[in-house]
C-alpha cells in the first residue's frame, strides 16, 4: 500500500512519519520507537495506548495516524523533564502505590494529567469517572486514586 506523510508535534517537537492510510496512531508511534504507548487490546477497550491529542486523552488504537496531521500528540515520555525529573503526576504514582506491573501506567498518567489540567481539585467521583476508560488489573485502582489526589496536591504546591 502506498505510504503518505503525516506531520505532527510529538512531545513538543515536529515529526514527519510515513504511514499507510490504514496504520493506526498506536502502530505508527510504536514503529518509531515510542513504546510507552502499549498495545493491550487494539480494540479501544483497555486504555493502555492512551495519548493526549491536543490535550485530550484518546486511545491511539482508534485513531488513524493520518488523522493527527498538524496536531499535537503527548505521550508519557513527553512529561519527563529535560533533567530526567518525573512530572509531578508521575511522581505521585511512584509515591502512592499507583503502579504495579506498569503496563497501564503511561495511559493512567496521561489521563490523570488531562483531568488535573481541566479540574485541579477533583472529587473521588470525578476521579473515578475520568479514569473509567483505563483498565488496571494489578492495583485494584485504590493506589491510583491516592496517586491522583497526591498529584493534585503536588501540582498545587508547584503553582
Amino acid at each position, binding site marked *: 500500500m502506498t505510504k503518505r506523510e503525516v506531520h505532527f508535534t510529538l512531545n513538543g517537537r515536529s515529526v514527519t512519519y510515513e504511514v499507510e492510510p490504514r496504520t493506526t496512531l498506536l502502530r505508527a508511534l510504536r514503529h518509531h520507537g515510542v513504546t*510507552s504507548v*502499549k498495545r493491550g487490546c487494539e480494540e479501544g477497550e*483497555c486504555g493502555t495506548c492512551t495519548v493526549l491529542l491536543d490535550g485530550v486523552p484518546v486511545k491511539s488504537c482508534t485513531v488513524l495516524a493520518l488523522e493527527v496531521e498538524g496536531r499535537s500528540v503527548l505521550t*508519557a515520555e513527553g512529561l519527563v523533564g529535560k533533567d530526567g525529573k518525573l512530572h509531578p503526576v*508521575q511522581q505521585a504514582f*511512584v509515591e502512592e*502505590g499507583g503502579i504495579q506491573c506498569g503496563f497501564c501506567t503511561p495511559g493512567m498518567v496521561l489521563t490523570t494529567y488531562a483531568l488535573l489540567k481541566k479540574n485541579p481539585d477533583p472529587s473521588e467521583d470525578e476521579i473515578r469517572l475520568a479514569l*473509567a476508560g483505563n483498565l488496571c488489573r494489578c492495583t*485494584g485502582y485504590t493506589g491510583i486514586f491516592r496517586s491522583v489526589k497526591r498529584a493534585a496536591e503536588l501540582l498545587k504546591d508547584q503553582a
Partner: protein
Amino acid sequence: MEKKSMIGAWVTRVYDPEKAAGTLKFTDDLSFGSELLYARAARSTIPCGKIVNIDYSEALKVPGVVKVIVGKNFPIHFGIYLKDRTAMAVEKVRYIGEPVALVVAESEDAAEEGALKVRVEYEEETPVFDAAEAMKENAPLVHPDLGSYEHVSFVTPVPGTNIAQHFKIRRGDIEKGFEEADQVLEESFSCPQIAHAFLEPHACICLQDPVSQEVTIWSTAQSAFTLRELVAKGLELPLHKVRVIAPPIGGGFGGKAGITVEPLCLAAALDPDIKGRPVKLFVPREEVLTTSWVRQGWNTKVKMGVKKDGTISAMKVELVFDTGTSAEYGANPVRSAGYTSMGCYYVPNIWTDSYGVYTNKPFGGAYRGFGLPELMGGLEAVVDAIAYRIGMDPIEFRLKNLLKPGLPTCTGMPMPPHALDKIIKKVAEKIDYHREEPPVRKGWKRGKGIALAIKAPAMPADASSSATVEILGDGSVKVLAATMDMGQGAYTAYAQIVSEELGVPMERVKCYYPDTAAQPYDWQTVASRSLWSMGMAIKRACEDARSQLLALYAEYWQCNPEEITIEDGIVKCPKLGKAEPIDEKTQNGFKMPDGKYKGGPIIGRGHFVPPDVVYPDLETGQSEKSVVHFTVGAVGVDIEVDPGTGEIVVNKAVAGYDAGRVISPLNVKCQIEGGTVQGLSAGMFEGIYYDKNGKLLTPDFTDYKIATTMDVPWEIESFCEETPEDPSPYGNRGVGEHSMISPAAALGNALYKAIGIRIHQYPFTRERVYMAIKAAERGEKDFWG
C-alpha cells in the same frame, strides 16, 4: 541512635520511575531489525474432530508470507506436570480456537491475512463441554491417549476416562464422623472459567542459531528457568543451549507461568527454512483467552456434619475442576485445593476427592489463588449456612472450629503457628459485622459477610532458588536473582534485604530481570514463594559477600572481622579509628601489609531448597509435611444491593493476613488492595462463556468484564499480623496470591445477609442477583440459576 532497619521500612518501589515515564521496555517493545519474521495462528473452527486436510495454498499467495507450518511438522508434547499439549493440533482438534497452522510472514499484517486464508477440512466428532458430563462413563474422550502421556509422580491421571487428575484425602472415619453429627448439610457451588486479564498480551520472540543450534527465547514469562527446562527437554537440547530472556511483564497472575505460547513460536523459529531468523508471535487480545490458560471452571460440593455444640465432626468434599483441553499445569491446582480441603478448620474426619476433568474448551492452568478460591468459594458459604442452621453466629462458629496451631490439617501435617483468631476478630470489628446498619442508598439492601483464606505454596518438594550478590568497585551492588518482578515488587524487597545485610544504601542496589544465561537458577515466580525462598538465597548470598569483604578488611587493617561494621556504604573499624567508603579495592584486590594483592571481585552466593516436604500419599493424601507453610487470613465486606437492578456496591472491604513479617509495607498493602479487587471482580462480573457449539462468546473486554474504577469498593482497609515463619529470611511468608482467595466468598455471604437467599452460581452479576431477589420474594432460600 540505633540503626533503622530496612526490613519493614516504608520505601517506594524500584523500577516505578521508569514505569511512570513509560521508558521500561516490555517484550513487545524490543526491536529485532528487518530480519524479524512474524507468526500468526490459524485456528480450529470446530470443537472436536479429525483433521482431514489443511489447505494453505491461498495463504502462501499472500505477499510477504514465507511459510506455513502445521501441527504434524512439530508434534512435540510440552508441559510442566502432565505432557498433554502440543503447540498445534496434531491429527485431532480439541477446542474451537486451537491452533491448526502457523503462518509466518515478513510483516504482522501479512501473517494475519495469511492466517485468514487457511482452510481446514475436518471429520467432526462429538464434543463434551460440561465437566460433570465428561466424568460419566461412556463420555467421549478428549484425550484417548491419556495413558501414554508423561507426567510427574505426584499427578495421578485416570487413563480411559476424562479425569486428568484425581487427588484424594482419606483421614479419620468419615462414616462415624457423620453419625456423630447432629446436623448435616450438603451444598454445592460452581463458577465458570475466568480469565487472568493481565493487560499485556503474551508475546514471544524465538531464534535458533543454525550452526550451534542454540535457541534464544525472549518471552512474557513468569518463570524463565522452568521455561528453559521444558523447552530443552522437549527439543532434546542440553540446558546451556537454551537461553530464556524475560523482559518485564505486564501482569501475570499465573497466566505466564510454566510454558505458555512459546512452543507455537518455536514451531516457526526451528523450521529448517526459517532457522537463523528471529520469529515473533504477538498474541492479540481476542486470542489470549484461547491460546493461554484460564482459571479452571469449578464445582465444589461440601457435606459438613456438626455437633450440637457447633463442633465440626466430619466433612466430605468433592471438587470438580473443568480443566478444558489440557491439564498440563491445571493438574496442580486440583492437588492444591485437595490437600488444603479442610480450609481453616480442624476436621477430625475428612474425605476429599478433587478431580481435574478434560472438556473440549480452552485450557485451565495456574491462576492467583491456585485452587483455593475454588475451594473457599464453596466451603466458606457452607460454613455460614450451617452456622445459621444450628443458630450459631458465623464468626463464633469459625473461631470454635479454627485450625489452631499444632492441630492436624487434612494431610495430618501439624498446622504451623498463626494469628488467624486475632485476624478474624479484627476484620469483624472493622466492618462492624454484628451491627445491622440501614443502607446508605435509599431502598437498597445492606449486608455484611466474612470469609477466611488459607493457602500454601503449591510446588514440587524440591523447588529451589539461588542468587548472587556482587559488590561493585564503588560500593554499589549487583543482585542476580531470577525472580520475575511482574508488579508484586520483589526487587524492592530484595534491595531492602541487601541494604539491610550489607549495610549499603538501598538506592545503590540493583536487581535485574531474568536471563537464564546470566543468572543463577530459580524454579519459578509462582506460589507466593519468592520473597521466602529467593529471600533465603539472597540473604545467604549477602552473608557470604559480607564475610568475604570483612575478612579482606581484617587483614588489610590488621584487626578482627568482628570489629568491622558496614553502615551506609562506609566500612568502619571504630577500635582503630578507621572508616572508608567501599571502593575499587573490593573489585581489584587489596594490597595487604605484606605487599601482596589479595581478593578480587567479591561475589556472594546463596541457595535454598525447602528441606523437608514429603509428597502426600497417593491413596490417602497423608503426609507429615505436605507443604512448606500456610498463610492464613480473612476478608470482610459491607455491601449494598439495589433490588431494582441487582447491582452490588461494596461500601467497605477489610482484609487481614498473617504475613509472618512485613518486609515491604507499600508492596504488601498494594498486593492486598489489588487482590481484593481482583477477587471482588471475579465475584461480581467474571465468567468465560461459550455458545452451544463451544465457541467463545467473551473474547474481549466488552464481553469479558473486569472491574473498572467505577466498580471498586469505596474503602479498602488492609492489615497484617506477624507470626514468624521458620525457616524464613525474616519470619516472612507469602501474601501475593492470598488476597484473591476469599473476597468472592465474603461477597456471597454478605449477599445472603442482604437478600435472604443463597446464590449457588458465581459470578453474582446484576441479572443473577436480580433473579435471586425475585426468587427470594417467592419464598425460596436457594438460587441455582
